[in-house]
């Protein structure tokens, strides 16, 4: 039995998402190979080759794979996956899109958003906005799984060898794999000086109860002081106060930072699904019955217009 992990990278470096999945995969004590696709990615292949946890690197280096189009990726991965017992990636957009597509090519199930690896064939994943956990056993010859980024930690240390040790295998591209696909037009990047929600140790999160522009500015000041990322509920994103990629929730980003500060958030199940596994939750809301207080470690009932300026002055 062997594990195949899809490498997540931006052309220059391997992403945190990849290291989390690699770290999680080591629980199974199986040989681990990595599949990487890109363009002019030799340095990344060498980097992968030096990771002590990696046995073999499968690479496609071609201009057609520069942006790793998910339809082509799925076909190529499906063609090499047969030798593996497990195919892992994270719940990033990359993993969420490619793995189910690969599974369908293989006529197998995919298990999405796993929060716990129980054994070789058994995994736990949240359902019903995380109100329930489902323990699932797979009978497929390849367990195709996306691992929830918020449930698996970064490795404490990453061990490299001085020289690449892993075998490097270049995969040939079959002409039929290059076919009609989507074309990229442009990106609208969310400009933020802050850490990303998945990487941040502290998140300060805005709910509708924040109410005013002044309170928003105080929230930004608080986030600056704590070097925190800023997140939001759906209501805040719908109102246009923050961009979509800041939304935390069941169908948006699921996070579990060391500290989650919920400001003016009532705690609807859809939002809780996105943050209730945070290590420490501190909630401020003017309604003492707000459901957020059922998952918080610390709570304060008060008006944010009053609380935030005073809080910022004390920190």
């Amino acid at each position, binding site marked *: 039995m062997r594990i195949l992990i899809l490498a997540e990278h931006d052309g220059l470096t391997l992403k945190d998402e990849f290291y989390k999945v690699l770290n999680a995969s080591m629980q199974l004590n199986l040989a681990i190979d990595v599949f990487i696709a890109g363009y002019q990615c030799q340095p990344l292949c060498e980097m992968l080759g030096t990771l002590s946890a990696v046995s073999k690197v499968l690479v496609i280096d071609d201009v057609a794979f520069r942006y790793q189009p*998910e339809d082509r990726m799925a076909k190529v991965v499906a063609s090499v996956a047969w030798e593996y017992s497990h195919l892992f990636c994270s719940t*990033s957009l990359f993993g969420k899109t490619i793995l189910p597509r690969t599974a369908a090519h293989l006529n197998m199930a995919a298990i*999405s958003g796993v929060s716990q690896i129980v054994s070789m064939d058994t995994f736990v994943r949240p359902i019903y906005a995380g109100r329930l956990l*489902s323990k699932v056993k797979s009978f497929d010859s390849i367990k195709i799984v996306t691992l929830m980024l918020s449930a698996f930690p970064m490795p404490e240390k990453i061990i490299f060898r001085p020289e690449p040790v892993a075998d490097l295998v270049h995969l040939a591209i079959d002409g039929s794999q290059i076919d009609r696909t*989507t074309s990229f037009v442009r990106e609208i990047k969310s400009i933020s000086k802050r850490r990303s929600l998945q990487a941040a140790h502290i998140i300060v999160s805005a709910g509708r109860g924040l109410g005013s522009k002044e309170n928003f500015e105080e929230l930004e000041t608080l986030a600056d002081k704590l070097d925190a990322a800023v997140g939001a509920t759906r209501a805040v994103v719908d109102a246009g106060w923050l961009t979509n990629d800041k939304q935390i929730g069941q169908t948006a980003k699921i996070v579990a930072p060391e500290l989650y500060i919920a400001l003016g958030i009532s705690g609807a199940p859809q939002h809780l699904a996105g943050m209730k596994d945070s290590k*420490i939750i501190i909630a401020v809301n003017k309604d003492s019955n707000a459901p957020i207080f059922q998952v918080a470690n610390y709570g304060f009932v008060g008006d944010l217009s009053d609380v935030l300026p005073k809080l910022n002055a004390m920190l």
Partner: protein
Amino acid sequence: MKILVPQKQVADPGIIVSGSRFDVNTSGTNTVVNPFCAIALEAAVRLKECGLAAEVIVVSIGTRAAQKFLTKSLACGADRALLVEVDSEEDLIPLDIAYALQQVVAVEKPDLVLMGKQAVDFDNNQVGQMLSALLDWPLITAASKIAVENRQLTVEHEVDDGMHIHTFLLPGVVTVDLQLNEPRSPGLAAVVKARSKSIDIFHCPDFPTAKQQHLEVIDTYAPHRDINIKMLDDVKGLADAIKTHSYRLG
């Protein structure tokens, strides 16, 4: 352009459900249309109202009980409704749904499959991806804006750190996200009129899980979070709590 819009029914997301060793207990909950499916239908109907689509067909995979939701979809503007009838929805996995939709596409030959990105009961977010693989069609997920010109679709969609715009030539699959639109509630006249329309039953031969078992749910349970909340008395207490839990971090 002919648009196929899958519709799933889910237990009302506002209701608490409990679990047991074998199954999720949804008795006593209401069934509603999956919010993302409603958004997909709204998008399809708006394209028809703009003259960019000629026909909108909705399809559900479920028991006969799904018919009343399909009637509502007709009231919201769909032209025809199909039911892929099954004895029980419980053991169906996304691969089965994708397979059934592939069979429907083979018969109905739509130009576009417009569907929700995930169902809010099992949160899989897989069917759109699987269907596009089975059809070998282009796919764009989590769409928040769709524009159509001739046979070219231009879609703005969510990515992890912002938005991307992609384009493709039909046919293809697009899954939708929350920001795309706000679904309408049909008026009473539309509801009454829809009741007189029939729902076609679509027969689908063996589902993938009928041939072999892929997955088995061996337990369903509530997560455990053991917390006794400490309510703070003043802003200073709040500041102290924040300092305690952040001082050692970067």
